[in-house]
């Protein structure tokens, strides 16, 4: 008897508390939506202004701001692409090459290193890991000074090697991958594969990498974008025009030389420079969001 009565009482209790929490819920939802919309507007605004500006003439931009589109789009476009001093196509290819290589190397070797720390027990493991964390705390720009003089010494100036190869050692990415592995990767899977006779590298490629997919997608984008927009060190290393990357070209156009200053061209260049990134991001974002949403169900 009691057992029959209890469910009813419980139901009424749940109903009441459900109604109250429903009200609270709607209130919360409204606040959430307001904030989300506000943030979304703030995020889209820079893109909007960028596109507006690439349709205006240099003098119009110089004199101030405008929310409305101009009609200089065609003109800015042809000025930009017909300028033989700005190798647009070449620069985009250069940037694509460097960024892709960097992202791939970073992601691959960081996963490898993270796996090494995660899976194996060996002497100095803790020491090396802590050392790596210490390295992480050193801003890369600090070592850029020394790297610059070394490159000058060994004739690596104006080459892409100092821009791409160091990507293999990226402590921040390793840290992230390891954290991810720690919460996701069951050691039992690896052991089972070993029993099946698989070699370590094979295990890494066929079991660990797939598990790491969402983390890889996230870090690939971060690494790609970081490399694409990197200005500081490439500006010090790259010298010849044909080797320039997009940020260097943008900086070149921004030079405050009044006689050839054309802001319309600059904004057009910036807009064009973003398009490959946007496309890559929109393609990958589905994977990222899917991967992050599916997440990792424990056990």
């Amino acid at each position: 008897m009691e057992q029959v009565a209890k469910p009813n009482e419980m139901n009424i209790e749940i109903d009441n508390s459900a109604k109250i929490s429903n009200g609270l819920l709607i209130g919360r939802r409204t606040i959430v939506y307001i904030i989300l919309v506000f943030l979304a507007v703030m995020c889209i605004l820079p893109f909007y202004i960028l596109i507006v500006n690439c349709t205006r003439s240099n003098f119009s931009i110089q004199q101030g701001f405008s929310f409305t589109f101009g009609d200089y789009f065609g003109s800015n476009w042809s000025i930009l692409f017909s300028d033989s001093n700005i190798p647009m196509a070449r620069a985009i290819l250069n940037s694509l090459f460097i960024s892709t290589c960097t992202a791939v190397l970073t992601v691959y070797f960081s996963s490898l290193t993270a796996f090494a720390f995660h899976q194996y027990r060996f002497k100095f493991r803790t020491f090396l890991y802590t050392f790596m964390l210490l390295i992480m705390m050193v801003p890369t720009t600090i070592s850029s000074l020394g790297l610059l003089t070394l490159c000058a010494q060994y004739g690596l100036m104006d080459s892409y090697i100092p821009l791409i190869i160091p990507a293999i050692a990226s402590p921040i990415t390793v840290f992230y991958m390891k954290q991810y592995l720690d919460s996701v990767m069951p050691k039992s899977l690896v052991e089972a594969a070993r029993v099946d006779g698989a070699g370590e590298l094979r295990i890494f490629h066929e079991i660990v990498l797939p598990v790491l997919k969402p983390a890889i997608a996230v870090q690939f984008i971060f690494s790609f974008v970081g490399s694409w927009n990197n200005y500081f060190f490439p500006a010090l290393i790259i010298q010849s025009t044909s080797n320039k990357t997009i940020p260097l070209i943008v900086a070149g156009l921004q030079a405050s030389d009044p006689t050839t200053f054309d802001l319309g061209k600059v904004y057009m260049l910036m807009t064009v420079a973003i398009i490959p990134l946007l496309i890559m991001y929109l393609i990958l974002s589905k994977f990222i969001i899917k991967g992050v949403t599916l997440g990792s169900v424990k056990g």
Partner: protein
Amino acid sequence: MNKRMTINTRKKKMSYAKWGYILLVPFFVIFILFQLIPLLQTFKYSFYEYYSIGLQEIGPNWVGFANYVKIFQGSILKYAGNTLILWILCIIPQMTVSLLLAVWFTDIRLHLKGTWFFKTVIYMPNLVMAAAFGMLFQMLFAANGPVVDMLMDSGWITETFHIGQSVWGTRWVIALMNFLMWFGNTTILLMAGVMGIDTTVYEAATIDGSGAFKTFFHITMPLLMPIFIYVVITSLIGGVQLFDVAQIFTSGSGAVDGSSKTLMMYLYKLIGTSRNYGEAGAVSVVLFLLTATLSFIVFAFTQKSGKLSKKEKKIMKEIELKEASKNGTSC
């Protein structure tokens, strides 16, 4: 039989251990070549006098700590202070908003629509080159720009406002720009972390009558702590290196009285005209020590929370047991 197995497994463990070393080789080789040696080189230069006058190179001549004395007699403490202030102004809103967003996006109870749109949009500012960002905001906040116009129209200010002359105005705008560029990044990372938390824990908490706040502070945060630490530390490292945005927005001047000049801007200036590797090396060392100190502080602070999480884990276990018992007696 057992003894033999133990010997075998021990052998296997050892042979697997060597894989640990092998897989680490690429990372550490490249690291030593391209980061450790240059880093030591930079530190080495800090003890030498080494710069250029015009086309003539002076040095490298050993001067011991002279460079350090020089930069501390200069304005390095001021720039370090600026960097810290800008970092704090940015990180607090950034972490708060990112956490909120991460929780909201992953809270099923909220039934949010269109989250895919929002999730995609918040990361987009990160794609824009910092230079472009700086230029756009310079336009927005110019003396004859829309923001000043709006403020004047609504009566907030009576005469034209030059943001470059306002110490806190410039700082807040730089913090805002940095926030916009990076909060999408941190939200995604935190979301990944939140998704890793078992949803049954949340269900148990709801049944127990835990409200949103309680759930957040006592369950989400402790479980999220590893990723959260990662996010704070990486933001810290990035923040100390704040350069592009501040440089472009203030046209390299650091605004009025150099109040928004960061350590990186200072470093850049030293390398720029006079290729002053000596002083730049000294500044780099200071930058490194600053980063290391802040990181240790963060680590230390979060270790305490580590202990809390054990307590929370206990509570969670009780919740799980309760749930199990309820299931057992369901009608």
